[in-house]
């Protein structure tokens, strides 16, 4: 079997994603549609929360991908710093705006859900606070990429920022927990005994989550392809100037 690292070759990556991207994008569309339609229309209303509960099918997958996107950026940054494969740096760059939007969706759907449940759009609950802080970290990371002209310097600096930022984001998470014990229910999907969620909800939720994961992969692949092309164009212009 060919080495995994071969896909870090930009040409090979482009050739592979030529067919892979449409497949993933279609799968994302279908799976997400199934998950959301099942979740919104084919599940019973909750006896306490009514139909409001159904926002969970947007809220939980988005929140999950908000964190996973950062984790993926962390791994890609490490790959770049250690193996110097341009594709991984560009994939990290492409993942950031997707993560940012996922965080925003998580926050907004949370506010819409929280309003009827807790009677407030916003609470300084540790979990909400942590997501707001994560949002700030995404903003900083994207702003740093945008500010640096030289692409390799940008890749290096943002990768280090991602590593250091991860440590401080985790610290902030625990600091927020320490600072205020909040309203938010524990993780919606827990394997602990006494799980609150019924399979009637869990099944479509899992489908939704898979769908959001596929959406993320499709967007990151598309973004990385754009970044590779932009990078290639920059290189061609620079060549032209040198010749």
């Amino acid at each position, binding site marked *: 079997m060919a080495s995994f690292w071969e896909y870090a070759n930009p040409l090979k990556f482009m050739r592979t994603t030529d067919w892979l991207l449409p497949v993933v994008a279609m799968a994302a569309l279908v799976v997400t549609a199934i998950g959301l339609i099942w979740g919104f229309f084919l599940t019973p209303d909750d006896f306490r929360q009514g139909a409001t509960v159904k926002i969970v099918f947007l809220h939980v997958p988005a929140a999950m991908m908000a964190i996973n996107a950062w984790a993926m950026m962390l791994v890609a940054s490490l790959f770049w710093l250690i193996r110097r494969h341009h594709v991984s740096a560009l994939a990290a760059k492409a993942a950031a705006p997707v993560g940012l939007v996922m965080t925003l969706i998580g926050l907004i759907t949370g506010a819409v859900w929280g309003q009827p449940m807790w009677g407030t759009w916003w609470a300084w609950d540790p979990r909400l606070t942590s997501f707001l*802080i994560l949002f*700030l*970290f995404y*903003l*900083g990371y994207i*702003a*740093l990429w945008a*500010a*640096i002209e030289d692409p390799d*310097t940008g890749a*290096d*600096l943002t990768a*280090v*920022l991602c*590593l*250091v*930022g991860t440590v*401080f*984001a985790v*610290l*902030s998470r*625990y*600091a*927020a927990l*320490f*600072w205020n014990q909040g309203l938010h229910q524990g993780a919606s999907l827990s394997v602990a005994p006494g799980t609150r969620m019924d399979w009637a909800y869990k099944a479509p939720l899992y489908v939704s989550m898979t769908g959001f994961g596929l959406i993320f992969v499709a967007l990151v692949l598309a973004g990385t392809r754009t970044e590779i092309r932009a990078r290639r164009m920059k290189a061609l212009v620079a060549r032209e100037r040198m010749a």
Partner: protein
Amino acid sequence: MSALLIRDLRLALRAGGGFGLGLAFFLILAVLVPLGVGPEPDTLSRIAPGILWVGALLACLLSLDRIFALDFEDGSLDLLATAPLPLEAVVSIKALAHWITTGLPLVLLSPVLGLLLFLPAEAYLWLILSLMLGTPALSVIGAFGAALTVGLKRGGLLLSLLVLPLYIPTLIFGAEVVSRGAQGLSVATPLALLAGITAGAVALLPFASALVLRINLR
């Protein structure tokens, strides 16, 4: 190494070095807050720990971009990078110089501002102690942010955007020490966590800052 510290202190204290700007900012903030929220001692004494910590943090932020930007512009940074001093040491010393000219005066001024904000008497000790423990972390984290943005034309705003989220844990634990102290509760846990963050930042971040500086000098 002491030569670098002495030079940086001298530069900060001479005309145009910007020494005192942070202090003045801290003072103005402590004056503006009561003007904004009203003069009731109860309200002010309740929010004083938070205001003083946020004020110290912002005052610290104000002078961060000077840590490396001036040395970058006049070529000193290139020369320091080729000098026998390890760049990690250069970063640490410059953060130390920043702390001595910004953090330490803030610590010393804070009790006076505590007075303006009706900080409860029990909290003064904890205010000074928490700032004493926390401001070194602010300088070291700030030096990392300054190193990240050193090559950029208008790095100042970006620097704030990058550094402020990194200040969150220090702020939470620092302000928690003071407000628990004000309520007469035990401060041991937040104080230990604050000290832990400072120790970790002082020990590890200079390596990241030096790495980032080298990248920016390429």
